[in-house]
Each structure stands twice: as C-alpha cells, then as structure tokens.
C-alpha cells in the first residue's frame, strides 16, 4: 500500500503508523460524561467500505493524517492533515 502524504508525497506503507478510527479526533469535553468517553474510546463500527481513520507519518514528517480509505480495496479517497481538519472544526 502507498500513501500520498500531503507534506512528503507518495510513500510506502512502512513509513506510517496506523492509529484507528477518526472518532479519536472528537474527544468529549465533559470529563464527567462517562458514557461519552466510553463511546469515544471503545465503540467502533467495522465498515466494509469507506472508513475515516487516523494515521501518523511516523518515519517521515510525523504529521497526523486523516485518511478516508475503502476497507474493501484499500483505495484511499482522501488525505488531509488532521490539524487542518480539526482547526476548521468540521469533526468537532
């Protein structure tokens, strides 16, 4: 698999660390909302199809990436810097 890092260009999979669902971007604000934290940490869908997920270009620029990947084909439909998406607030 190859990933087209927005900062470095196309690189091999071995340079990247896979973290998991992009759900991790939306950390609950209320520390006492245990249900929200439970959902944030543990509840994941397992789609056969498009999945939004977080990767880190750990052996490259160390940018955290938000990637939309088709789990059936490993085709990557979009790659953004997680910082940009978070700053725009689209997932919060």
């Amino acid at each position, binding site marked *: 698999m190859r990933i087209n890092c927005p900062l470095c260009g196309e690189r091999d999979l071995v340079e990247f660390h896979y973290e998991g669902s992009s759900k991790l971007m939306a950390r609950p604000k209320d520390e*006492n909302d245990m249900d929200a*934290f439970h959902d944030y940490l543990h509840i994941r869908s397992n789609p056969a199809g498009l999945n939004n997920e977080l990767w880190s270009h750990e052996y490259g620029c160390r940018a955290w990436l938000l990637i939309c990947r088709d789990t059936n084909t*490993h085709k990557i439909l979009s790659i953004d810097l997680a910082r940009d998406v978070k700053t725009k607030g689209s997932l919060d």
Partner: protein
Amino acid sequence: MRISTVSLLDRSNQISFKFDGKRLFGYAGDTLASALLANNVKLLGRSFKYHRPRGVLTAGSEEPNALVSILKHGQLTPNLRATEVEIYNNLEVFSQNRWPSIKFDILRINDFLSPFLGAGFYYKTFMWPKSFWEKLYEPIIRQAAGLGRLSPVADNSKHEKAFAFCDILVIGAGPSGIMSAMTAALSGAQVILVDEDFICGGRLNSETFKVDGKAAFEWAKINVSKLRLMPNVRVFSRTTIVGLYDGNNYAGIQKVGEYLENPNEDLPDSVFWRIVSKKCILCTGAIERPIAFRNNDRPGIMMASAVRTYLNRFGVTPGKRIIVFGNNDDARRTVFDLQAKGVKVIAYVDSRKDVEKIPKVTSFINSVVINTHGVNLLSGITIKTGDITTFLKCDCLAISGGWNPTIHLTSHLGSKPIWNEAISCFVPQPKAVPDMEIAGAANGVFSTRMAMKSGVFRAREVLKSLDIKYEHIDVPETEDENYNCEPLWHVKGSGRAWLDFQNDVTVKDLKQSVQENMISVEHMKRYTTQGMATDQGKNSNVNSIGVMSELTGREIESTGTTTFRPPFVPVSIGAMGAGGSGKRFAPTRLTTSHHFNEENNAPSVEAGLWYRPNWFPKKGETSWRQSCDREVEMVRSKVGVCDVSTLGKIDVQGPDSAALLDFVYTNKISSLKLGKIRYGLMLREDGLVMDDGTCARLGSNHFIITTTTAAAGQVMRHLEFVLQVLRPDIDAQVISVTEQWAQFSIAGPRSRDLLNETCNEEISEETISFMSTLSVSIGDISACLFRISFSGEHAYEIAVPASYGDAMIRLLVSKAKKFGGGPYGMEALNVLRIEKGFITHAEIDGRVAAKDIGMLNMISPDKTCIGKAMANRPGLISDQREQLVGIKPLNEDEVLLAGAHIYCLDEAPKRVNNQGHVTSVCYSPSLKSSIGLALVKNGQKRIGEKFKMVDHLRNSEIIVNVTSPVFFDKTGSRVRG
C-alpha cells in the same frame, strides 16, 4: 539425447556437473533438466506420498516432479525445479525423497499400499489414542512423506532487497510482452520488463515458426536487445513476479549469484524486489495442462510443449520412440517438429472426432491413452479406439490437454477468473485488477500474431490512461492459427490417474471427496491436498475443477475456482527476509559511551534497539553478581557514573508549553518554578498508566521532559497526537532530543565532590537543590545539570551535546576513581532502583492504574488531563486490584523469581487463587537478601502478611513477606544529601 545444434546453447562452453555423485556434461544455456535429458537421465526423484518414480514433466516454473537439492558452498538447498536451474561448472545436484537410492526406493511399498492411503487416510486412521499423534504417528509420516530435506547447517545464503519505480511494468517477455514493452518504450514511458527465464522470449524460444521472416527466438533476441539499450527501459531477466499487493506494489524475486559457480562475494544470491508501477501489462502467457489417465505419471511422459522446448531450444530429444497424445492442434505441431528433427514418432493419438490423420504417422483419431507401462521408466502405452485397444512400445509420451492462461497474479487482490467456454479455460475478469491490462495468451489470445497485436493494443490503452502519446508500431507477420481444443479432463477407466503430481492426488481421491460430500472445490482441495504442494496446482487446478464438474454434474462455472495466492513460485524465507537476519534484523542504537564500555569489557544488554552496558567487570571478578554487588556498594558509599542517554528526552517550547504539559501529565506542571524539576505521571486516555518521567522548566516557555527508554517513541507520538489531533489550539512545539544530548547519572554521597572537580561553577545545596536544574560548563562546553535521582542517593544527571559524550564518560569516570568510584551498569542500576521501590515498565506494564502504584494523589483535582475521566472508573480504583508492594523471602537464603505468582498460604497454587505476580527481583547487597517488587491484590493493605511465591515453570515455592516497596532509606534522607 542431444540431437542437434541450436543457437540458444553455447556449444563452445561445455559444463561439467554432478547428479547424485555422477559426473555429467552439458552446455552453457542448458537448464539442469535439459542437461539431464541430454545425458539420458530421466528418473529424477520419487513422489511425495507413494514414492512413485518421477521425471521431468514440463520445461518451466510450473514443474511439479523434477525437484532436486543443490549443494553449494556447504549449503544444501532443497526443492529446486530442475527445469529452472541453470547449470554451472561443478554444480552438485541430488535427487530427493528416495532411500537408499533413486532406482531402488524402499518406500515404494507405499505405492502398493495405495488402496489404503487415499484421501482422508491420515485423518481417519491416526485419530486415537490422541497422544500418539505427536509422538509416534506424525514423526513416522513426516519421515516417509516429503520432498527435500532442510540443510543441517545454518543458512549462509545472501539476499538483498531493492526497490524500483516505473510507469509501466510488463510481466513476461514473450510475444505479447515484447510488443507491449516496445510500444510503451517507443512512446517514452518508463518501462520495466521482467521475465523469469534467463533468456527472454517465452514460447518464441521454443517454437520453429518465423517472425518477420526471422527465426522466432532471433526476433525475440533482437527486440529485447533493442529494449535493453533504451534509456527509459529496464529489462530484468531471471526475475519472477511472485505477488501483487495493494497500491500497485509488485514483489519480484531475481536470481543474481545463485546461478553462478563462484559469484563475486559482493553479489547476493537473489534480490527481492518491490516494484511500484503506475500501470501493469500482464503478459505471462499460458501453461499447458496434462490429461489424467491411468499411470500418467511415469518418467518419459511429458507435456507436448515441453518436448518442443527441449527439442527446439536445447537440441535434446526426451526419447527415441515418441508418441504424441492430445486434444488440440498443438499436439500436431509437436509431431511435425519431431519429424523435422528426424525423431521417430511412433503414433499420434487425438481424442477429437473430426481431425485429419497426420501423414507418415500412425494416427489414432477419436482415441485415448488408457494406460502406460514400465518399471522406473515408460516402456509402452495402451491406446483405446472405440472398443479396440492397441499396445505400443515407446520411451516418451508427449501430452497436451490444452492451455490455461497464467492468470495467478490477477487473483492476488481477490478477483475470481471466469470460464470461457469457447477456448475451454479460465480467463481473468475484465479489470480484474485496477491499473492492470492483460495481453496475449494470459488473456486467452493464443495465436502468436494475435498475442502480439493484443500486446500493442493493451499498451495503447495503458498509455492513454497515463496521458502518454502513443507511437505507432507495426505488428510483425507470424504464426496465426486458430486454437482448436476439445476439453478432455480425464480418461475414464480403472486404476489411478494423476491430477496433482506433486502431492500424489488422483481422480480416485476426487471421487472419494465427492462421495463424502466435499463437493465445494475449496473443501475438495483441503481434503485431498490437491493444489497444495509447492507448485500450487499450476498443472492440476483446472483439470481438477473439470473432473469435479463431471463428477458432480455441474457446469464448470458453478463448480468454482480455487484462490490463487502469492507467491507465484516458492520463495525462500531467506530471500523474503532479504538480509534481515542477525545484526541486520533490527537497527542498532549505540550510546556515545559505547566504545568506553567495550574498552572496559562491559557486556551489552539490549534495551529495545539500544545496547547498554550490563556491568563493568573488575580484575578477579568471576561472576556478574560480584561486579553488580560491588557497583551497588560503590554508589551507596562513594560515587558511580552511568550513561542514561537512552531515556527519551523531549524539548517542549512555545507560549502554551505549560498548558500542553498540564494536559498530558496528571499533575500540575504550570506551577513549576523556573529551574525546578517535577516528577510527572502520564496516563493513556483509558486511565491506565502510560509512562513516568521528569519535567524540568528551563524557561517560562521552555521545558525538557524525560521518558523511560521503552516508551520514548510512544510518548513522542502521543504528544504529537495531542498537539495535531486533539488540541491544535495549544501553541507549543515538541521535538525529540534523545540523540542530541548525552546524559550521565552521577550518583552517590561523593557526587557533589565529583562535580565540583568537573564543572567550572560551584555546585552546592544553594546553587542546585534537590529537583532543580542548573546551567553549567565543563571547560568550554555548556552542559545542563539536573539534580534528580533514580538510585535514592544524592545524585545528578549531566547532559552534554552528544558529540562530547565519549569524552564526558571518560572524564567523569576518571574523576570518580579519585573518590573510590567508577562506572556502573544496568544490573546495578536495577538493584538501586528496586531497593528504593522505583518503578519501570516491568511494573507499569500497560495494565496498571495510578492507584495501583500508590499515585492516585498525583492526579490533580484542579485541572483536566488525558486519562483523568476514565481513571475514575470504579474498576480502576478498586481495592481488589493488584497493587505495588515489596516482597522479601522469609528465609533470607531463598531467592525470588520474577514472573512467579503470589498465593495465599492456605490456598492451592492455582490460577483461580492467584493473588498477583512478581515484577522485578534482585539481590540487594544493602539488605543482604533477595528482594523484589510485586503487584498483589489489595497489597497496600496487606503489608506485613505472608504469602506463597510459586513459580510453576522453575518449580519453586517459597514463603514471602509482603513489605513496603521502599526497602532502603525509607525516609529519603540520602537523596537530599
């Protein structure tokens, strides 16, 4: 027998090699198979299960029978296909799976026991008693069954890995591949052309027709040479693409040194390629399929296409009296080629009804071969025409059941091929693989001219998708006959008819599979082992599906296909690992004091990728314990120096750096005063402990934090995650400076004296108190001094730029010696911290919560932090959790064992009664006893109680006292000096 001179051999270069100890001769350009056939060696091995005599069946990588072992430089490599091995001078080859000799093999008895040894025999027979399987049955079966033996010596083969990138990868340099590559290359694309053979050309090297008025092989040679000279083309011969992976990654294995007698020592045996290509054109051609009939596995029975290859490419005839049997016109071509070379063709047998007889050859039309005869070699066959049977003597039978496109790579990403009734074979689905076009015989286009045309056409399609302008190219005039084949999967009759030669699977086994309702191809495959040998059923899969469809009365489409998986040909583990063994298995990280450690004979211990000194032996010390005890006493009484550079060091800067640290540490960092240091605890978001370390404030917006050696990478990634993913509003920057600073611990009552001898500044309680930091200089060098302690002693850590690390350790150790001190290693470091109850990742193993290690009060109530929400879950603050305690054997002569479990005195040492486990142990020279840290249920409230420590693996059971985890200097007075 060699019968003619052919241009694809170098007759001036005679090569001598050994087969089972016997010296034989061949020529440069021969494969082992062609050279053996030229020497009339036809019996090459014994079959896997029945130990039947076997000879060469094919002339390519699909060979199931002719597997040999090669001895080179003391290394025996088993299961190499003789049809692919190039001979070199003094090549040493051995036949396999025979004892005592290839001509007389004791286990041939299996063949006579075959009525009992069919599919499922092992499953059904060796069921009970259960314990017998591992100890008795399996070793016996393994001894009898099998292919070559592994080399008894350690693998000394050399392999490399390499990476390549291109616009268009063309796999296979036959007619369609050459035309595809040429079209792409002339249009200016970056092209890689690979072929598994050592001479490119594919079938063009094996057939007698002309291309553009030239001999086919010559046309191939000219065009491949042209391609090799083009700057935008790379031609890799001896390279097999073995797998196709996501993102247009192609794995290829290239033979480099393995076909040479004495390769240059810089040459690897093979190179494992990863080729990334924007587009691919698959031109892998087709594999001829056998026909199943009784005793169709004898040496001398060979694929018709292979007979033509040996004849036309190698000038070798596999027999003197040959019969050709087929169901398609290629069989006829074989007869003509043999006649042209003057080889006697005894008969021609064709299973089709409406075909013409061949002039000057006894032709049996609408006929089949029903049996073959012979002991070790083929001596004759029986032909059946209607009700009439005819026996004919022969020493070679050429068979052709039609052609199967070589479509394995199209299936590697999950696409299933589809059945094409018109040409009775499986072809790839259109767009089976994104970015791949399939040309020529691989796509069911069987005539040479049409294959070439298809190569050009597919290349045009690919060029179009890459926006590269297509340059016109003419398709040469050549053979352009229709493919005319009537499927014949097996000839009905009694006896065993082989489908899978390598795993000894016959039509009978498939019948039994169907009888037992294993009618899915996938079930049949696993029950009979058809297609599961090293050839992966290249000769047998389609035939088996054909037979299954007949047996179950289903159409072939609905019978299904099995799944082709990588690798296309067997690849040695060494080649896949490609040099990643021994020291090259993982990178080595060395500290700046490494040379010093080596000069002082300190044995290394691996800490992740780091190598750290374990202890520094002194003259007269005979065991590590002696050295370790001395080093501990040295630190406790005088002063010791230890390299601690492997701990993670992260530089944090920016206006919000304190806010960042408040968010990632449980305790408050923003209140830390300038020049002060605080111990910090980090949690994971799930509330469990991630890591601990220190945090020093160097400026109002500048901190240096440390991590454990083990979690340095994890913590760095975590901080970046927080900054980029969770809180981009925090304006702070983090960077790892672990390798930029060499850091040394100076610990012991004389540490301050040592530093005063070393630093330009005065070191005193006033200038640097416990848990504070100071900028110092040593000569001209600026350094950072931290007063922190991992030993419980009055101690410092000094950080200098890494380039001064080597000088620094030498300076510090020489100064330490003045005070009766010296260097200490990891063993002593571990004892010092266990005596003080300091934790490492042996304790915070990812399952431990803050309360378990007595640090619940470190979670600040005044602020939020990562993991705080979940750390309050009832399950993580329960008293029933295992908590950190110290343990000591009741009898001080007894020894604690790390990993042992803790049980109540009156309970059986069983899993359900487990009270906890021992995490770290050492011998404490300060306490003169074995001591340890343990995690024990509700341990903090059970201090003073007695327990059993049981180690089931090392058979130890002793009584221990649970104590406070702090064994030494419980008030912490020493650390304050």
